[in-house]
């Protein structure tokens, strides 16, 4: 199927739209190269979005407003990094995960050596830390690290609880 040809009127609307986007980027402190990258990304996105059906000017503007690639997509990969608050949450999730794993090891150790109260204390710490890690991981789910931490915490929690149930359900 042949792609529809964009009319000069539509190209003019696109031109104004892209220029406004470039202005916005420059006002936000981006360099001209960054603005060029954004304009190229947005243009490619819109051309792909309307590759088979020509949009009306309103549809084009709406697509640009709603379908503008997120900063992740419009920023060169080398400049991508999670926002600062996400980094803090991620660090917290990672620490809680490590602490949780340590707690379960210590809990097992103390219980094995007859120090049940201490072992149980570490058991409770394990539960709290894993839940914290799971929650923080889910809050930062949009990042790869966040998903990784949440899944690891959830899996560890599930395995340990299953193990406890199995061990305690014996005759």
């Amino acid at each position, binding site marked *: 199927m042949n792609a529809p040809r964009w009319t000069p009127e539509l*190209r003019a609307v696109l031109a104004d739209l892209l220029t406004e986007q470039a202005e916005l980027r420059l*006002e936000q402190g981006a360099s001209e190269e960054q603005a060029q990258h954004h304009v190229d990304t947005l243009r490619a996105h819109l051309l792909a979005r309307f590759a088979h059906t020509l949009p009306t000017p309103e549809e084009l503007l709406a697509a640009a407003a709603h379908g503008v690639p997120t900063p992740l997509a419009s920023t060169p990969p080398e400049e991508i990094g999670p926002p600062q608050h996400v980094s803090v949450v991620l660090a917290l999730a990672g620490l809680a995960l490590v602490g949780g794993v340590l707690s379960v090891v210590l809990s097992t150790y103390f219980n094995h050596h007859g120090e049940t109260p201490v072992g149980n204390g570490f058991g409770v710490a394990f539960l709290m830390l894993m839940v914290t890690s799971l929650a923080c991981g889910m809050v930062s789910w949009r990042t790869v690290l966040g998903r990784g931490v949440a899944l690891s915490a959830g899996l560890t929690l599930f395995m340990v609880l299953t193990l406890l149930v199995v061990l305690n359900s014996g005759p």
Partner: protein
Amino acid sequence: MTQSRNPPVWMAQMRKGVAEFAVLMVIESGEIHGYGIYEHLSHRDLLNLSEGTLYPLLARLKRQGMLHTRKAASPGAPPRHLYTLTQEGHDRLNAMRAHWVRLSRSVHALDTSETLP
């Protein structure tokens, strides 16, 4: 031999160097829309700029006070942005013209003196 789709770096740099000069010259000829500038330059050998280069350049020139924009009604479409040169834009263009003449004269003189016995 396969030819790369992108021009060599030196060629792109030379074109980038004159892009602003070319855009100001096009706008000097009369009030014009951004897409009109793109179309105008796309028919000029070696001066065709991509939209990704042209529109941010227009945005920068506007921010620098070289261009004045006016919104003109367009039937069935949002108002269009039409560009004209401000006095500062005219001054910049004239300075560029003078510089270009000196630069091309120097390059030509250098080239001629090197190739002549």
